[in-house]
């Protein structure tokens, strides 16, 4: 009888552990695999995109730096009109621990190159095909994502930025 009892307990414990593992794994996967759209304050999803200069630009390489990621396209008039401002601030903050990345969405290479020539851009332009855009939940152009030194999203700004906004945001972020 006691042998039988011990056997039963063994079966119970095994089954409960199995349920716990399967259930725990499923729930943990559900709760922690955060495929929801990142918000201000959440960790910036990692990405690695090819640049126009054939270099690979990886977000995690800029840990300790502030990253300003601007999602744009030549087909988006406000993107076009804010680009000189971004270029200007790229120059200004180049040596101040701020990395600008102009993430182009789906433009033909020729058009991007012509645009860069036309606006005399020197900031790094990287090429995305809706992959990083979707990960960041960007719905409208332009959208600028400010990522702090710890890789957390400090601010997401939709629409054309003006100088006071960009200047104060960067001043705030660099002073912290």
């Amino acid at each position, binding site marked *: 009888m006691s042998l039988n009892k011990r056997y039963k307990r063994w079966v119970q*414990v095994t089954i409960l552990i199995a349920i716990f593992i399967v259930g725990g794994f499923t729930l943990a996967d559900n709760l922690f695999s955060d495929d929801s759209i990142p918000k201000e304050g959440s960790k910036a999803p990692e990405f690695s995109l090819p640049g126009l200069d054939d270099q690979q630009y990886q977000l995690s390489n800029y840990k300790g730096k502030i990253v300003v990621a601007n999602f744009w396209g030549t087909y988006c008039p406000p993107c076009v009109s804010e680009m000189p401002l971004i270029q200007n601030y790229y120059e200004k903050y180049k040596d101040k621990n701020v990395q600008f990345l102009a993430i182009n969405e789906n433009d033909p290479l020729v058009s991007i190159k012509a645009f860069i020539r036309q606006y005399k851009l020197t900031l790094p332009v990287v090429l995305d095909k809706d992959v990083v855009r979707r990960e960041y939940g960007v719905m409208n152009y332009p959208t600028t994502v400010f990522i702090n030194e710890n890789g957390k999203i400090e601010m997401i700004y939709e629409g054309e930025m003006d100088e006071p906004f960009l200047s104060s945001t960067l001043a705030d972020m660099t002073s912290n």
Partner: protein
Amino acid sequence: MLHNTKCECGHQNPVGTVLCESCGKPLDDEFGTAPLEMRYDGIARRSQRENPALIDRVWRFFSSVKVAIILIFLTLCASIMGTIYPQENTFLNVDPSVYYEATYGFSGKLYYLLGLSDTYGSWWYKLLLIMIGSSLIICSLDRVLPLYRALSKQQIRKHMSFLVRQRVVYQGQLPATGITAVSFIDGLVPLLKKRGYRVHSDGTALLAEKHRFSRWGPYINHIGLIIFLLAVLMRGLPGWSMDQYTGFLEGVPTQIENTPYYLENEKFTVEYYTEEELPEEFRGQGRAVPKLFQTKAILYECTADCSSDKPDLKQVHQQNIEVNKPLKYKDLLAYQFDFRQTIQIRAVNVSLTDKMSNQTYGPFELNTITPDETYVEGPYVLTLKDYYPEFALNDKGVPFTNSKSPLAPAFIFVIQGPGLAEDGEVFIYFPRDVDKQRFSQDKLNAGIVDKIDIGVGSMQDVSISRFTSYLNIRTDRALPYIFFGGIIFMIGVIMGIYWQHRRIWIRIDDENEITIGAHTSKNWFGIRKELSVILGKAGIVVEPKQLENGVKQA
């Protein structure tokens, strides 16, 4: 509390036993007369034990059928809630936090805030499924093992009160004087065997039993359900499940996200019913009722340079996709979901004409989505300096593109070659005649236009994408397991529903007094009739109806 669980027949029963496992004597309600509750043969469930520890309490919680029913009911309610508004995953490019409120107002906002917009992917829905699964396993084990034990060592001679409190009962005398109890029993054996019973007898008592396996039906169907549930949960494993919606422009191989596959919508067809084909009530209303949506699809696998503009593609599959006829390739499924008319030039096959010598070079292809940068045709080198998919001029006269769709493409070349300036001369080319007129191509090209022309021979040289076909791309590696679980489930259901576990117990006391009790898992009418036929052949005439417990015997 300590129960004395030893039966008068000497058998030690576990706590919670209702009918003695050995002789069948009712232990709780010894002096009652109502028909016995024969569920699980009156055995104790495993979880019914004294001094339960925590693990026993958890076990007992899940072993309760009441809990199982509540869980199933909750899951049912949740599943219903999930069908009120479209779920998040059915949208292509929508921010759910805004969409629900904007579309459905306050109830939409509430729906989103309660997490019902992703009901089937939510943690609490999965928790419900896991709990149902646990309940299935534990409920089954708690009952099937003791039941198996009880059924595999049944005593032939049952307690008198066990027999007379069955729902099918007969009591009477041996049919003829001179026949002994043993010979009567022996005479019954072949009659029962002929009817498919397995018969065990010990002289003056008999147990006949058939189709015991039907008792395992519910447990087998539970195993099927557990396989089914596990398969559903396995969809959460990476690579096991994918469900996305992608638009495919005609003639442009487009990558299926997170896979090495590219799919090309070679040609999309939509056909409508003609007026004559429509039923009476639809006619004359100008209704367009679609007859066919078809995507002629080619599937490629990327072998190198994936995610670049010019990946190396190898065709692996070709199929026409229609509604409910998805493309199938390995684990990949592509269902027709939607379409949109998106008329645009995909490519033009142009030729370059040297107007002085009337020589024509080419044709060469200008792609409007990913145009190449240089073209060498005869002695001419064309460098594409700029490209605008939808050319327009702003108020300062600066060109820009209105969108990324090639609705009014403009190619700006610098052409080098004989008769042209050494650094090359600019030539602006609009493939569409409307744009040529609107932006006065010849004026823009003043100077070079007398020497060079770029153009197409005929409409044959213009490739047009008329439609974008939206496909639902799916992978479901769990599907075979889901089917397997479903088949096991059906086998269990059929076992439990089609066959009945019938048992007949007979004991003869004092060489003359026959007592018969019979039990079936269902179809009581059937067992009464069967018993009446068998008894009739053995010389006891009794109407099936009289065998019912409580009905007076004639």
